[in-house]
């Protein structure tokens, strides 16, 4: 059995009386795309928050590449190889796409406590960032302020930022949201392309994309993972249809 890259074990989180995460366990194996679906309010965001490090779970643990990272900070998890994109892009809007990626490159190269050398004349840093942007297909737009980029392009910048940290796993939170049909197809192709290198935990509402991309699907309802299985199993499940797909139709 292959060792999972990312493993979540028995995660619990309550906010007052609300149990947002109930004993959730899941894992992400090499070369796979594992989709996490669930209706609104199922606790997807809370779960993602705990995996990424923004929310501390009440109990349970999170392992990245076999290492317990449950008490690590967001930044530390990113450095250890958990790349992510947000439902609503979270970038430094005033500066260029390249500048955003340069920050990830400098973090991957070690210390940010370098006070004297100017980044704008640091060709190696600029080039490396440019290469990542070209890889996600944004090569021609690298020097444009993020605030002037489209939603889809911002997502591409986020993915480039994540890739620049040479992640072991990617956590993508509704990457298709706001992309439009063409953007959606392009992103789907791109994710197919990087899957062999970097496994992806995908949270997505777009069912076409999920069914096309996912190797495994976990269904989250009311804070609990009610079902986990292959695409066909999930499609066939009456339970899922009732809890989730039924609402969509």
């Amino acid at each position, binding site marked *: 059995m292959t060792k999972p890259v990312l493993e979540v074990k028995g995660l619990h989180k309550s906010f007052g009386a609300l149990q947002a995460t109930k004993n959730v366990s899941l894992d992400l194996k090499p070369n796979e795309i594992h989709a996490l679906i669930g209706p609104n309010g199922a606790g997807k965001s809370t779960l993602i928050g705990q995996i990424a490090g923004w929310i501390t779970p009440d109990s349970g643990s999170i392992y990245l590449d076999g290492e317990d990272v449950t008490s690590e900070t967001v*930044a530390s998890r990113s*450095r250890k190889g958990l790349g992510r994109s947000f439902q609503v892009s*979270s970038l430094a809007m005033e500066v260029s796409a390249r500048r955003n990626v340069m920050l990830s490159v400098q973090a991957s190269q070690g210390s940010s406590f370098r006070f004297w050398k*100017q980044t704008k004349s640091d060709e190696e840093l600029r080039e490396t960032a440019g290469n990542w942007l070209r890889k996600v297909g944004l090569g*021609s737009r690298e*020097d444009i302020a993020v605030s002037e980029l489209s939603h889809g392009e911002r997502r*591409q910048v986020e993915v480039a930022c994540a890739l620049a*940290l040479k992640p072991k796993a990617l956590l993508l939170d509704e990457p298709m949201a706001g992309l439009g049909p063409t953007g959606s197809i392009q992103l789907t192709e791109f994710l197919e392309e990087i899957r062999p290198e970097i496994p992806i935990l995908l949270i997505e509402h777009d069912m076409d994309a999920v069914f096309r991309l996912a190797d495994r699907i976990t269904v989250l309802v009311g804070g609990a993972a009610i079902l986990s299985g292959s695409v066909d199993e999930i499609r066939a499940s009456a339970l899922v249809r009732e809890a989730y797909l039924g609402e969509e139709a």
Partner: protein
Amino acid sequence: MQRTDTAPKSINMPKLSRETVVNIAVMAILLALPLWASSIGEDYYVNLASLITIFAIAGVGLNFAIGQGGMVSFGHAAFFGIGGYTTGIAAFHSFEETLFMAIPFAISGTNQMLIIWIVAMVICGIAALAIGAISLRTEGVYFIMITLAFAQMIYYFAISWPTYGGEDGLSIYLRNELPMVDAESALTFFLVCFILLLGAIFVSARLSGSRFGAALGTARMNETRLATSGIDPFPIKLTGFVISAMITGLAGALFAELNGFVGPSMLSWHRSGEIMVFVILGGVGRLYGPVIGAALFVLLETYIGEWTQHWQLLLGLALLGVVLFARGGVMGMIAGRARHD
């Protein structure tokens, strides 16, 4: 997700941007006026220019925290005052030929400015490390209030320390000395301040353009992004806060030299507000903004203040105008929006 956009790359900046021209003009005027005033024997105006320069340094320090790091400190008077008191206390012991402390090791006073500056900056750095370590765990209004509270604590501490004048403050009878130049001369002292201002701006610019500066700037723009890119925001912000405090502390040391006096008023929250006014009036995040802000402030205080004691009403209106209509401060009005690459 291949895209074949063929949008043009952003247009290269002209060699000399409008902001650069403004910067050069402002600094040229600031340098030329006291030279001229000195040549006609009007040391009063030279000292006025020194005051502007010193306030500008304090503003450059605070601007690094606010403009680069997004840390709106309402307690920078603490560092301004600590810088001042370091000068006053060093000079006091040097003058009285007594020791500042004897245990565990003897520390005497000194009248050497270079030593005083270094000591003042180090003490400010340590104070900022402690204040920042606690304050930076909060954000927004809470950060503003906590930095204010710390400054007030130091203010009351100074008032209740009778050895160094308590409420009355401490006079520096002889200006401290610099090697090779006569610091007693108004013009020489101005030039020293002017060079230090250039130094402070240069350091601030270099740091802003460095990897550290990139991280600090992202802490201001989007802390989530900084953390997601694998950089812990807290140590970055704390370092920025310390550097900011050290620059403002140096200004405090110079202010004490200029006035030949240090008092608790250097530490009062009014002073924190004034330093913030220099930054906002000039333009938050603009490298030379605090020079314009400090100049406007001092000129309003001096000339309108001569005419009516309600000069602050005018200052208030100017500030209101800037906040309402020119978010980039005076620099923003003259030179347009700040550019980023």
